[in-house]
């Protein structure tokens, strides 16, 4: 795919199609803002386009793109002050008949959790809790628990050591657990 992409437009467009949703998804998780995620997604592919010739294949292409996404998302975070604030959560909805998020998540015993009235807020709560994590922790948790990368891939994407990755994941998860205590 890299060779094709380097050859010209059709090949590069194929690469874009293959990774655009991933990049948007991850940048959205990092930034918790659709507009910013859209900006970052576009910038990522500009950077990929510009730097693809320097890609040496030392990591997988996807890991390399994760690395660019993390880097540009970090830049985007730096460029917007006050964005570290936790969003004010929406008041609980009490609508009936809605199958909520919690209805779709089985608990460890295989039983369905019945918290539909609060389900809508859980999404917001998770997003807000993620946003409130230090960026280093958030990146590690997102890449591990939401993108399912292994520790080595995360270390490559975040340009750090595996031990550091594990430490960030452990601390990030612990902070997340504290913030989501009432939901868990």
């Amino acid at each position: 795919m890299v060779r094709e992409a380097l050859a010209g437009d059709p090949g590069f467009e194929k690469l874009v199609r293959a990774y655009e949703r991933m990049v948007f998804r991850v940048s959205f998780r990092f930034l918790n803002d659709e507009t910013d995620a859209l900006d970052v997604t576009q910038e990522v592919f500009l950077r990929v386009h510009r730097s693809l010739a320097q890609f040496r294949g030392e990591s997988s292409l996807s890991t390399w793109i994760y690395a660019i996404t993390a880097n540009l998302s970090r830049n985007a975070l730096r460029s917007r002050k006050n964005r570290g604030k936790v969003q004010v959560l929406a008041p609980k909805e009490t609508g009936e008949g809605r199958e909520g998020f919690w209805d779709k998540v089985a608990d460890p015993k295989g039983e369905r959790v019945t918290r539909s009235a609060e389900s809508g807020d859980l999404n917001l709560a998770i997003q807000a809790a993620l946003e409130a994590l230090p960026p280093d922790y958030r990146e590690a948790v997102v890449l591990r628990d939401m993108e399912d990368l292994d520790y080595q891939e995360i270390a490559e994407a975040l340009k750090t050591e595996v031990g550091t990755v594990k430490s960030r994941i452990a601390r990030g998860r612990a902070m997340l657990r504290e913030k989501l205590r009432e939901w868990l």
Partner: protein
Amino acid sequence: MRDCQKIHPLLSFYAEGELPPDEKNQVEEHLKVCAEARRELEQYRRQRKTLIALPIPEPPRDLHDRIMSRLRGAPQPLPKPHPWLTWTPWALAAAAALVVIFLHPLTPGNKPEVVAQLPKAFEEKTSTNLPQPAAQTSTTGVGQNIGLNTEQTRKRDTSDRLPNQQMAFAKKTKRATKGNEVEPAAGYIAKDQEAEKTKNLEVAMANQPAAALPPAESSNKPMMMNKAVQSAGAPAADLALSAAAPLPQPTEGALRSIGFSKEISASTWSGNNAPVTAEKAELVTDPEVFKQDWQALRPGETPPDVDFTTQAVVYLAAGQQPTPGYSVHVSNLEEKTEQLVIHYKVEGPAAGTTTAQLLTRPWSLQVIPKPSKPVQFQKD
């Protein structure tokens, strides 16, 4: 206690089955004697399942096109602006000039009941050609002749609208003006009262102080009235002029700032993170209020320049929606005899679109020429 400090940081890794055998055994031994560890482990398990199952954010439908356009150095592909967005005061002046010039001799029986408050530049241009009284126009005629009033509903994209649409906006205005050899006239043109109770703003807006007007007629679902309507004595031509400012060419370094370029004050912004969960429609006429709204919507970013002496901002929020793909936008401006009705729409994802379950709170800000009549909102 010492065991707790050592073992508890391992619990989340134990929950995902990632521990080597020796650490796994230690954790299991600890779990037998520590209730807190068992509780924590259960929470990690639930947390892990929750994160894995979290709905995937759905990207805008035109994500691919946007990326490719950026890569090719072209402006962002944007939905065509709604017809009313192509309206400008001086395009109207030009259009009205056409009507005055070409229709007046054909309709000698019409007696104007309202003397139009023509912009000076416009009067100078037309007065040599026309007998007095000069302003004898039919708004219906205007609408039909300038052809701005035909298409009304065009599906709009749900994603951000960058001001590139102002390119088309400016070009269209330029064409309209050039074709009629009329200088860009400042201000609005009054419409003939015979011409009708409900015509689109593309036609004209009377330049009357709001205080002189009787209370607004009630309409469907009125949401709020403009709290600070002032006489539109100041021209609104800045809208067109600012829109005509050259759009920065997309170079990589400047790309991000295009949407908030100070040269482009007439614009639309939107997003999915409104700070309010309830539906809202408001006309912002105060710079300080706008600044506060902007900070709430786009924290940390500098508010765009809006000239509140000639412009106002429509702030819409669609309330909390269950999935991405919703948008809220001004769909039409309708002028009635005594008020301006701002129609707006909340649109959902296109039929058949698969969207993630992810709560959103769509909002939009739309710069419009400052109304000279009381304003009423109507959701369509």
